[in-house]
């Protein structure tokens, strides 16, 4: 990891890390997030949702935002508390307009092999917003009565 910060204030866990496109590093981060969610009694469904959304956001950052340039990094920031997890994923690209991505669930697109990452993030997280200029995605998962 190129740089990392982590810490706790009361029951809040905060993590900021610069990622390179390295599977072991991403897996380590996912394990850490899962551990923090479990420590706050978020259920398996929440853990699955958050893991999937983080995976898609990071891979999108490297593949599309950074256009696969291995010298570029992705910034990962998260805050976890008893009520929610907030994740920001920032790539080094120029940003994009997510509204321009075709709906992969349209019948005409069902057999197209790509373009499902953003819709999965939106389906599994409570909020997903791309912040100007479009290279920062902010995702929030709020605890529900069942999670």
């Amino acid at each position, binding site marked *: 990891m190129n740089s990392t910060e982590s810490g706790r204030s009361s029951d809040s866990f905060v993590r900021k890390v610069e990622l390179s496109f390295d*599977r072991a590093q991403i897996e380590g981060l996912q394990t850490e997030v899962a551990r923090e969610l479990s420590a706050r009694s978020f259920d*398996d*469904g929440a853990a*699955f949702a958050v*893991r*999937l959304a983080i*995976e*898609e956001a990071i*891979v999108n950052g490297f*593949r599309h935002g950074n256009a696969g340039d291995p010298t570029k990094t992705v910034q990962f920031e998260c805050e976890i508390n008893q009520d929610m997890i907030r994740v920001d994923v920032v790539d080094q690209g120029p940003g994009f307009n997510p509204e321009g991505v075709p709906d*992969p*669930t349209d019948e005409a697109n*069902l*057999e*197209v*092999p*790509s*373009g*499902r*990452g953003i*819709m*999965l993030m939106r*389906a599994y997280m409570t909020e997903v917003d791309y912040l100007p200029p479009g290279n920062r995605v902010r995702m929030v998962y709020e605890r529900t009565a069942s999670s």
Partner: protein
Amino acid sequence: MTNEERKHIMAAQASRLKVSKVGAVTQVEFVDRNILDESNIQQIGEELAAVVDEVPTPMIMIRFGNVQHLSSAALGALITINNRVKGKEGKLRLAEIDPQIREVFKITKLDQIFQIFDDADEAMSSFD
């Protein structure tokens, strides 16, 4: 890439699939519990393509019993394989998918293009 080139490359790597024949059906299982890594997904796609290309009319069942997580890139690889099987008028069945992953197929509406079965026996019967 020719079949020979593909076989040569795959022979140099540890396989990401367990492949077995049950009658005319090729059963495929994944070695990995998490199908996320881009290079692994690419390899899985190439290995599945080789399975499809092995026979004129492929009948393939993919068992997901071991799989806990998969990404949209993995879904993409499965769609590519489904298109390849359809192109040869073959049959592809998916079975033993974890309920959370099955939900991913439902959300993406991919349950409309894949034939998904709860268990392997049911999937095998569907080839008749």
